[in-house]
């Protein structure tokens, strides 16, 4: 029984980062599948009823569709060429215009104590290898904080699963460091969209094979669409996006056409989904639509057939997953058809405990690690760290906020929400709690993104007078002189006292506690309620809260924010509702011109700033420790991996 006592203590070791996980996203490496944007919460497209309501539904969905012959489509459509690129080549071209800030040896000796030094390290150690200098037999040990639930490409939902899929999965599309989508030159010959925006035509390369040697064809893609859309298959995440399409049809081994319901700017993300090998699943999936119970599927789960540059060669549950470069990715039929990735082996080592992870980096057991802000500031400054590692940081499109439940007694009034933002000691948070590592946030879209307005809203600063004036104006006055403001509601004086839900992490609790102290100065009482992540998720989803601390990662497309702000939408925990915002999101999705689209999202940002449904706090950086053996790390707004080339640009130099 004593042995059980310790389980009570371990709350601190729970690694769930609610919200922050939100950002941690998919696919990386060379073959990424970016995620398509969200699910439409309400029937804003007028067509979301294409699938009948649950309960009465036939097992088969989507509704059968008879694709017209290719000749007819070609005759009726004007095709517009879309970009087909190689992420690595793009990066190489871009780097050829730049010179490294300092010599390599000097960069290795630097200690990252300022943003200027950070730039120097990135500029020098982030470069791709000159030809012949990379050690192509190298192995990299990557850190991963949790085990895989599944290795089946369409069953994935967690960060770890997306990380692995980025290296083992087959995909047609990707997006670069600027988050602009393109078809991947490694798998695609051409990509065209019809002028009416209702069709996307992709021609695959003819030199693609699965790891078992069977050719990868357009039929695999059409087949996967059918499996994903089948109601009996418990697909957790990848269905959103594909459900926005009407049909996917393979006209021959190499030509596939995606049929859309509507011409949307977001269609480009919907056509990007993981692909299953048809020859492996076509005879098994109907007998076991769970894709995990039959003996065949259990075996596939252990050793899946891979369509990406790597294949899984070993899986020790709870410990590690080893991927090896597969020869028939770069060499097909005896000739070299594409560049082989830099690492021969990628070993994902599962370490949940953050202290152990950092020790593992220091001891050279792993080669890279995402650091916590505390680790960055206090535990990676000495010789023990710099002996064989260095560290870099970059801004990321991940922001944190206090969310105010507009349906609650206190926060329906915009003046009150503004008062909250004015009351908070923003500078105290940025300087003392966040060690000056973060930039303040003022809205949903990052200032350096194309969707932010031209005139940037200014982040709030603490102004207690303004906060008090706004609260007075909203009718919250301390009538009984007990130090807490109150207001007469239905003949009863209600004191201004509310609870803030926050994940059990020290920094987050500290930020909320600072808010509590700030609010005390304006006569508002706030209780900090550290709560388990799942409980927060449950309470916020069901709107049983007054305020919460949370964060979001901005998607690759601004439309992915619609389900935070549209009336009644899935992530709209604060019950925000503004018809103009709803309209602008709907229009933004239909607007194909980038400039005009940007105006709509810019306007949304301004409206949100006025309404302050959130008190925006800061944009979080990504912090990474890298072994000095590693080179080629380049950061996008989604960190060093989740874009193209992403992980694919990392390499190790040959040992002299």
């Amino acid at each position: 029984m004593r042995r059980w006592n310790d389980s009570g203590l371990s709350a601190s070791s729970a690694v769930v980062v609610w919200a922050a996980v939100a950002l941690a996203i998919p696919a990386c490496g060379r073959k990424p599948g970016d995620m398509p944007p969200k699910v439409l919460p309400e029937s804003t497209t007028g067509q979301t009823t294409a699938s009948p309501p649950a309960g009465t539904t036939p097992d088969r969905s989507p509704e059968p569709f008879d694709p017209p012959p290719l000749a007819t489509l070609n005759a009726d459509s004007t095709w517009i060429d879309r970009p087909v690129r190689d992420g690595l080549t793009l990066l190489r071209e871009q780097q050829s215009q730049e010179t490294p800030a300092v010599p390599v040896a000097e960069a290795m000796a630097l200690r990252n104590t300022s943003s200027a030094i950070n730039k120097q390290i990135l500029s020098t150690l982030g470069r791709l290898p000159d030809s012949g200098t990379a050690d192509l037999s190298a192995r990299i040990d990557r850190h991963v904080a949790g085990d895989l639930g599944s290795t089946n490409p369409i069953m994935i939902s967690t960060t770890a699963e997306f990380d692995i899929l980025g290296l083992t999965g087959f995909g047609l599309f990707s997006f670069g460091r600027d988050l602009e989508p393109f078809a991947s030159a490694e798998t695609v010959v051409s990509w065209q969209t019809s002028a009416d925006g209702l069709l996307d035509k992709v021609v695959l390369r003819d030199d693609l094979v699965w790891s078992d040697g069977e050719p990868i064809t357009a039929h695999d893609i059409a087949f996967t669409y059918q499996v994903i859309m089948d109601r009996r298959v418990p697909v957790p995440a990848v269905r959103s996006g594909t459900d926005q399409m009407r049909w996917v049809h393979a006209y021959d081994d190499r030509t596939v056409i995606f049929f859309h319901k509507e011409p949307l700017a977001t269609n480009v993300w919907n056509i990007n989904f993981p692909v299953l090998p048809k020859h492996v699943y076509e005879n098994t999936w109907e007998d076991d639509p769970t894709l995990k119970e039959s003996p065949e599927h259990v075996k596939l789960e252990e050793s899946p057939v891979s369509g990406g540059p790597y294949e899984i060669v070993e899986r020790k549950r709870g410990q590690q997953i080893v991927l090896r470069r597969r020869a028939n990715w770069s060499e097909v039929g005896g000739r070299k058809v594409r560049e082989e990735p830099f690492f021969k082996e990628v070993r994902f080592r599962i370490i949940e405990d953050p202290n152990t992870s950092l020790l593992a980096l220091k001891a050279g057991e792993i080669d890279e690690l995402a650091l916590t802000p505390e680790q960055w500031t206090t535990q990676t400054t000495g010789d023990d760290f710099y002996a064989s590692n260095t560290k870099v940081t970059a801004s990321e499109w991940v922001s944190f906020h206090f969310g105010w439940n507009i349906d609650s007694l206190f926060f329906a009034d915009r003046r009150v929400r503004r008062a909250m933002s004015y009351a908070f000691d923003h500078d105290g948070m940025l300087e003392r709690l966040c060690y000056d590592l973060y930039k303040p946030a003022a809205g949903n879209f990052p200032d350096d993104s194309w969707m932010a307005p031209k005139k940037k809203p200014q982040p709030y600063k603490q102004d207690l007078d303004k906060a008090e004036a706004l609260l007075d104006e909203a009718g919250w006055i301390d009538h009984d002189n007990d130090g807490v403001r109150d207001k007469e509601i239905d003949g009863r004086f209600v004191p201004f006292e509310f609870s803030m839900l926050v994940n059990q992490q020290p920094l987050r609790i500290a930020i909320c506690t600072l808010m509590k102290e700030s609010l005390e100065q304006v006569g508002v009482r706030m209780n900090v309620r550290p709560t388990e992540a799942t409980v927060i998720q449950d309470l916020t989803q069901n709107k049983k809260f007054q305020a919460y601390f949370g964060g979001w990662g901005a998607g690759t497309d601004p439309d992915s924010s619609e389900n935070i702000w549209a009336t009644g939408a899935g992530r709209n925990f604060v019950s925000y509702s503004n018809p103009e915002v709803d309209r602008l999101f709907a229009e933004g999705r239909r607007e194909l011109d980038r400039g005009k689209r940007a105006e709509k999202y810019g306007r949304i940002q301004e409206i949100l700033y006025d309404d302050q449904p959130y008190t925006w706090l800061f944009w979080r950086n990504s912090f990474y420790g890298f072994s000095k053996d590693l080179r080629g790390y380049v950061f996008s707004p989604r960190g060093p991996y989740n874009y193209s080339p992403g992980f694919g640009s990392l390499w190790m130099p040959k040992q002299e």
Partner: protein
Amino acid sequence: MATYLLRRLLLGLLTLLAITFIVYGLARNMPGTPLTVQMGESDPSRKLNPEDQERMKRIYGLDRPWHEGYLRWLGNVVRGDLGRSFSRKQPVTTLIGERIGPTFLLSGTALLLTWLLGVPLGLYASARSGLADERATSLLLYVLYSFPTFVAALFLQIIFAVWLRGTSWELPLFGMSDLPADAGFAARAVDIARHAILPVTCQTYVSLAYDSRFIKANMEEAVRQDYIRTARAKGAGPGRVLFHHAFRNTLIPLVTLLGLSLPGLIGGSVIIEQIFTWPGMGRLFFESIRERDYPTIMGLTLMFSVLTLVGQLLADLLYCLVDPRVSVE
């Protein structure tokens, strides 16, 4: 004896029913479901739409009220099916099977070490009670007892895996084995043993302090009894008095302790497994609660409850062995 056993078994079954019913009810009524967890962890742009949520609920059987769910679970258990983990997509029995070995390796070794060291230490302490060397040992044991395992683990890791790296004293930082699955048996055994040293140390030292103090306390009480004075009076040597007369009379509480440690053997330790990334049962239990993975929670609960009941029954039966005055009739 047979009626006693039968009565105990029936009572045990009822207890099991009650435990599993209550735990199932509590688990299902915790805020959040496996879907909430998935929603929280998945990419924001990949959220399930309401219709898909309903579909997943049906697939998981969460659309039915919890008591119905319990009955279905019970029915499957009776047929020998513990169900399938929601989050890990494997049968619960497979999951438990995978974890039971590593857990037992740690806790079995730790338990054995604890008793091998704890009993002599406890006897030594009661023999030398009040003397300077015993005071010093006790102080040390108290210090150890109050030293949190997670801090000790970190220190051990820094010393043996970081500072001593590259020397022959180096020990692995985390994990259970570094060798590929096809390495030879002997090499693998050595590798796993090396990985086990630090976690076993952490798991042992706290119990060691506790158990030796436990034995000493019981001995202190025993040596004040009349029969000890009698034994001394009739001229028995100090060793014989200690082992033969006193220690044997403290076996009853010891057997209780041993019986109660049976579930712990399989239960594992969340903290130690977490820090050393040891693929054990404690971590599985902890994660399954976090993930609201009801089938796994229930499978583990059932196993732990059975072990606790069996441990108690064994202890009760052992009483007859160690104390002739106790009879099951």
